[in-house]
């Protein structure tokens, strides 16, 4: 290990130890006798929680120290540190993972759900920030990515790009911040629920038929032909089993239910297609943002205004991404594509609601349609009642005024 590398390593360990001291003293104070009564943390339960928490913390720290010892003992792993200007990528990533895990553990102890959720988001943002720092270091120091030297700037950039998306997708779904990506994920949940419900619906038959199992796998991948074959085979088995038992006309795949299932499957395929189109646009914008950042960095470096700290680079990075995505969002084509994806999800949900209503209609269970009918009636009754109550109140007011007028005359 070069001298500078050793210094970095020592400095790192010292940081960790100071960190633990600070952590210990600041958090212990919360539970110590005579601490600030306002914090309201003096209950026995809190003490127990704190003791348990600190124990976990200590265990974690010991485990971490052990892993570091092992790491140092393995001389082959020390090779990357021979170049004193770098911290090995894997080690850094492992370190980040360890922090992530411990933060997850501690975060779960935060009592307030809002604070807990915010802490969780902070931890994930910290991970993203740290991962980006690693990329930044690679980019600037010597173009080395993942500890491997490439020949020429073009290869380095290509490698950096690959790593960029690899790191980003680890923390960002679709290369986007979590909250934003949730839009897609939430929409995608409709498809997942659809798949799950479909699986549950056919489970009894799929479980007993390997052929149906195989066909159903293709169905879930959006193969319409497989769906038709599956339905045909399911019909045969169904009629030999539950269909015969229940002997209810119109329940088979030739009846109303099958028609609704087919319609729902069409909606599913359309939804998947819309989602893919939408994601293609999002991915492309991710690449555009990265290229834009590279260009901007070149310009700044040419002007000797390149970021002097990682924080400056990070600010440049997220602002550049924000700007690039907002440019996409402002386009008419995005508005249409987004609307189409949302609409395809809504159509799928509607179709599947129909399927579930048909299935449930066989049993003495209230369907959504039944409930809607009740809601509508209650809504109308309330509305009528309010209207009548208002009329009555107005009449009473008029009567009161009339009485006052008449009384006034009598007095006068």
């Amino acid at each position, binding site marked *: 290990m070069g001298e500078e590398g050793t210094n*970095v390593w020592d*400095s*790192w360990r010292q*940081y*960790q130890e100071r*960190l633990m001291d*600070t*952590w210990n003293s*600041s*958090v212990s104070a919360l539970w110590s006798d005579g601490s600030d009564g306002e914090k*309201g943390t003096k209950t026995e339960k809190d003490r127990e929680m704190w003791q348990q928490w600190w124990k976990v913390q200590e265990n974690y720290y010991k485990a971490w120290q052990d892993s570091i010892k092992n790491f140092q003992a393995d001389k082959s792993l020390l090779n990357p540190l021979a170049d004193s*200007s*770098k*911290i090995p990528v894997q080690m850094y990533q492992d370190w980040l993972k360890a922090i992530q895990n411990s*933060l997850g553990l501690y*975060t779960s*102890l*935060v*009592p*307030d759900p*809002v*604070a*807990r959720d*915010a802490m969780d*988001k*902070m*931890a994930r*943002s*910290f991970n*993203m*920030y740290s991962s980006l*720092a*690693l990329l*930044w*270091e690679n980019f*600037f*120091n010597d173009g080395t990515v993942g500890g491997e030297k490439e020949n020429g*700037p073009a290869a380095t950039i290509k490698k950096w790009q690959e790593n960029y998306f690899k790191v980003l997708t680890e923390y960002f779904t679709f290369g986007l*911040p979590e*909250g*934003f990506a949730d*839009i897609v994920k*939430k929409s995608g949940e409709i498809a997942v629920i659809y798949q799950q419900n479909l699986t549950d619906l056919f489970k009894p038959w799929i479980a007993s038929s390997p052929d149906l199992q195989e066909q159903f796998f293709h169905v879930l991948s959006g193969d319409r032909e497989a769906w038709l074959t599956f339905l045909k085979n399911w019909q045969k088995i169904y009629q030999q089993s539950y269909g015969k038992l229940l002997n209810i006309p119109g329940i088979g795949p030739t009846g109303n239910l099958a028609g609704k299932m087919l319609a729902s499957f069409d909606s599913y395929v359309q939804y998947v297609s819309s989602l893919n189109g939408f994601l293609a646009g999002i991915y492309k914008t991710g690449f555009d943002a990265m290229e834009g950042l590279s260009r901007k960095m070149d310009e700044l*470096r040419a002007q000797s205004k390149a970021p002097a*700290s990682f924080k400056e680079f990070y600010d440049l990075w*997220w*602002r550049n991404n*924000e700007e690039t*995505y907002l440019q996409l*969002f402002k386009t*008419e084509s995005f508005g249409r594509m*987004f*609307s189409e994806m949302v*609409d395809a999800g809504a159509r799928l949900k*509607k179709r599947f609601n129909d399927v579930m209503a048909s299935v449930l209609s066989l049993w003495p269970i209230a369907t959504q349609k039944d409930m809607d009918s009740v*809601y*509508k009636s209650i*809504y109308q009754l309330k*509305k009528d009642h*309010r209207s009548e109550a208002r009329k009555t109140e107005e009449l009473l007011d008029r009567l009161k005024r009339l009485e006052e007028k008449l009384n006034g005359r009598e007095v006068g």
Partner: protein
Amino acid sequence: MMLDAGAVKPQYWLDEALTMQKKLLQGIGTMISLQDVDVDLTPKELVFQLDKMRLFHYKPMVANPVPVPLLIVYALVNRQYMMDLHQERSVIRTFLEQGLDVYLIDWGYPDQSDKYLAMEDYIDGYLNDAVDAIRKSSGLDKINLLGVCQGGTFSVIYSALYPGKIRNLVTMVAPIDFSTNDGLLYSWSKYLKIDNLVDAFGVIPGDFMNLGFLMLKPFQLSLDKYVGIIDNLDNPDAVRDFLSMEKWIFDSPGQAGEAFRKFIKDLFQENLLVQNKMELGGRVVDLQKIDMPLLNVFAEQDHLVPPASSRPLNDLVASKDKEIIHFPGGHIGIFVSSSAQKKVAPAIARWLADRSAPEEKKVPGKKESTRSKSSPVSQTGDGVGRDGRSD
């Protein structure tokens, strides 16, 4: 592309990353000491309730409040306690300290049983009933109305339909003219196929609405603000402010489907309100019926409701006493920033107090809008932009 800077050593980013980690861990200590994120603390009492809608009356903070009560109407999206996040940053509290007598509507959380609620149920029903409840308890024919965001749109529609019940109208960051494409919500909503969405969901999930708002600033709202707060995690006041806002942001009620359908179709897509073509409960909403004093407040950097959507209101109404206040901030900052607390809320309170003298017997030909010479509102400089005044 050059890759030879070489000047940046790992110590730098390691130092930064470790500093952040330290702050994160300290932050957990702060978070654990927080038992609950308290919002909506200004004392108030429930005075009226209809279904899920609740009307609250805040306890006055001066001996002789402004004689005309003020009803605040918040949007259906998100919760009304944005106006009272905490005591140092509370529009409500500022209003009370400035002498206003404040009522506020809480729309509640609609569930599937509310899917058929239409916009007329909110405006002709709940809002009108709340106004009547205040008129009855105060013994006044007219009260002051302040609408926020979508609640501002509702208040404008209400004032056009019931001008005889409103003494003064205040709108804050209210979308009125939907023809603009300045905001992403405006351009996206034009393509939204609302019928399938409402039919499929009944009540549009709050998460769907909220994530749409996050998309307006994806990296800032989903990443950078969390990185930013790490720097302040050792500051309990900053953490409390941050968590109050987080609580509010992610506390998103669903939208009753029928009301949402009409809001999107009639307003975002067809822009009927500014054309005086919008109908509600069989009546046309004519903005020219708005003749009471009007104060239109908007934020200059509003990314949700751009000024181009709010500003035109003053040109569409018949009011002779009308004014615009614009504040250099965003849609939320206008309520919670310390600067807004000092400037916007007091300016609104003064404007209302000046026009809320006790009702006099009307003399034919006398101008209805009067100025109080003995307003309980303190007369400090306000520091907000004004234009469009025409008494």
